[in-house]
């Protein structure tokens, strides 16, 4: 009896977390679509949405209402089961990462001890979903987009993985909370992994570039390259199924920003005097979200500035630049840890 109760409590807790996280995901992704249109608008000397609700804030609600009520078209020549399943797989791949995202010192659904590994593994599902969608559409543009997406994800997994190894090596843990805890020193600022040593600084940039490519954002948005492939893998998708792709795309921006903020920018660590103003480490949560917000803005900013690379250049950037650089960073970090055990870069000069 007792064991059932315990199991039930665990399940209930899990269900509550799932509901809360899906709400968070929907809200965050929706808000990001609004933010992207607003940022794009102002960068392009125009205003962006401003008619729906105050400052156009309800724009994403209207988009959602419309998309979910549109006709659900399945092309007659499409492979219907796969066509239906693809978007869900992409959505699941993006949503599952939220389970390990640390929203604060004590706010996290589950702190897996293999957190970063889990992130790498679960996001790979998305590629399968995209491939499925592109193939099942029975559309040549979609197929080209899906093939590009597969090649891109497989290649960029390597620099992402290697640059993830650096915080893991520094913290000696794969758990996201563990990595954040390990960045505590140096007044809560200098201890961040990005300032740990020159190699980890470089790894931050390499890792971020590779992550932008991993989620198919400009300048690496080849799978849905608008001017080349019409709409890429989602050419044939309409209504609700398209909304899932859309949701996953924007959720992914948030996910990579949160992870980069957590493993390189100290997570919820902040200069120590302000730490305990609010209970539950809420200050830390805001700090983490602020760091993520800055990174999100940079991702949007890049999109509205840069042209797109070509397929062969995409591979060149990955294999000739990012992967070797990530490997050098890993080696450098290892050498650093051997040469200056337990010391950070700024610690070499001072007492911190």
């Amino acid at each position, binding site marked *: 009896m007792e064991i059932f109760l315990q199991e039930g409590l665990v399940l209930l807790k899990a269900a509550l977390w799932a509901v809360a996280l899906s709400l968070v995901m929907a809200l965050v992704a929706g808000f990001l679509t609004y933010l992207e249109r607003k940022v794009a608008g102002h960068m392009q000397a125009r*205003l962006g949405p*401003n008619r*729906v609700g105050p400052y156009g804030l309800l724009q994403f609600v209207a988009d959602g209402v419309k998309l979910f009520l*549109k006709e659900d078209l399945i092309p007659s020549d499409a492979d219907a089961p796969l066509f239906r399943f693809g978007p869900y797989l992409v959505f699941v791949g993006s949503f599952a990462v939220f389970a390990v995202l640390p929203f604060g010192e004590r706010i996290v659904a589950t702190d897996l001890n293999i957190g970063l590994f889990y992130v790498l593994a679960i996001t790979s599902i998305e590629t399968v979903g995209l491939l499925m969608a592109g193939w099942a559409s029975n559309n040549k543009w979609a197929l080209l987009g899906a093939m590009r997406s597969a090649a891109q994800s497989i290649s960029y997994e390597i620099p992402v993985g290697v640059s993830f190894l650096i915080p893991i090596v520094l913290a000696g843990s794969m758990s996201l909370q563990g990595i954040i805890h390990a960045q505590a020193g140096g007044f809560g600022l200098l201890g961040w992994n990005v300032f740990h040593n020159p190699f980890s600084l470089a790894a931050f940039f390499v890792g971020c570039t590779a992550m932008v490519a991993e989620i198919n954002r400009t300048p690496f948005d080849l799978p849905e390259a608008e001017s080349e492939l019409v*709409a890429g893998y*989602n*050419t044939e998708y*309409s209504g609700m199924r*398209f909304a899932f792709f859309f949701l996953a795309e924007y959720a992914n921006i948030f996910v990579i920003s949160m992870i980069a903020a957590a493993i390189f920018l100290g997570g919820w660590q902040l200069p120590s005097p302000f730490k305990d103003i609010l209970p539950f480490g809420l200050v830390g949560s805001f700090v983490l979200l602020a760091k993520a917000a800055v990174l999100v803005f940079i991702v949007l900013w890049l999109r509205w500035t840069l042209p797109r690379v070509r397929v062969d250049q995409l591979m060149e950037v990955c294999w000739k630049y990012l992967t070797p650089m990530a490997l050098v960073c890993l080696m450098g970090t290892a050498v650093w840890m051997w040469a200056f055990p337990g010391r950070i870069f700024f610690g070499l000069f001072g007492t911190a």
Partner: protein
Amino acid sequence: MHYTLRNKLPSTALFTTVDAVLNWGRLSSLWYLLFGTACCAIELMQTGGPRADLDRFGAVFRSSPRQSDLLIVAGTVTYKMASRIKRLYEQMADPKYVISMGSCSNCGGLFDLGYSVLRGIDKVIPVDVYVPGCPPRPEALTQGLLVLQEKIRKQRYLAREA
């Protein structure tokens, strides 16, 4: 379907509210197909551009017909193109709307004299709003969009017609 159902249901405030929310979603998010046939396409570009900025009304362009709600037929449609326009329209998911932009797509316009031009896009697909002009300036197209929004606002799905 709607008509039969609508007349059997009692008229309640709930249905009017549901209708209002549906219409609000649809009219606030009219994604248009990135498609122009002739001269009006340039003014369509300018309308999406910084000065007129259709994005204010939630209208952005999509390049796939599956994801667009609004087909703006911008320019002359020849006989050769007519079947393609029809196919594009059929590829769009319901609910879908059509704006005929400019004289050529309204009724053939100045190419009425030619032998190869379709005299009015409404011979091929249903048109919701006609925008006069050759080409209409961006504000005129924006007004066309507003007229379409008003039209959508009056649509009824569950509630009885007033």
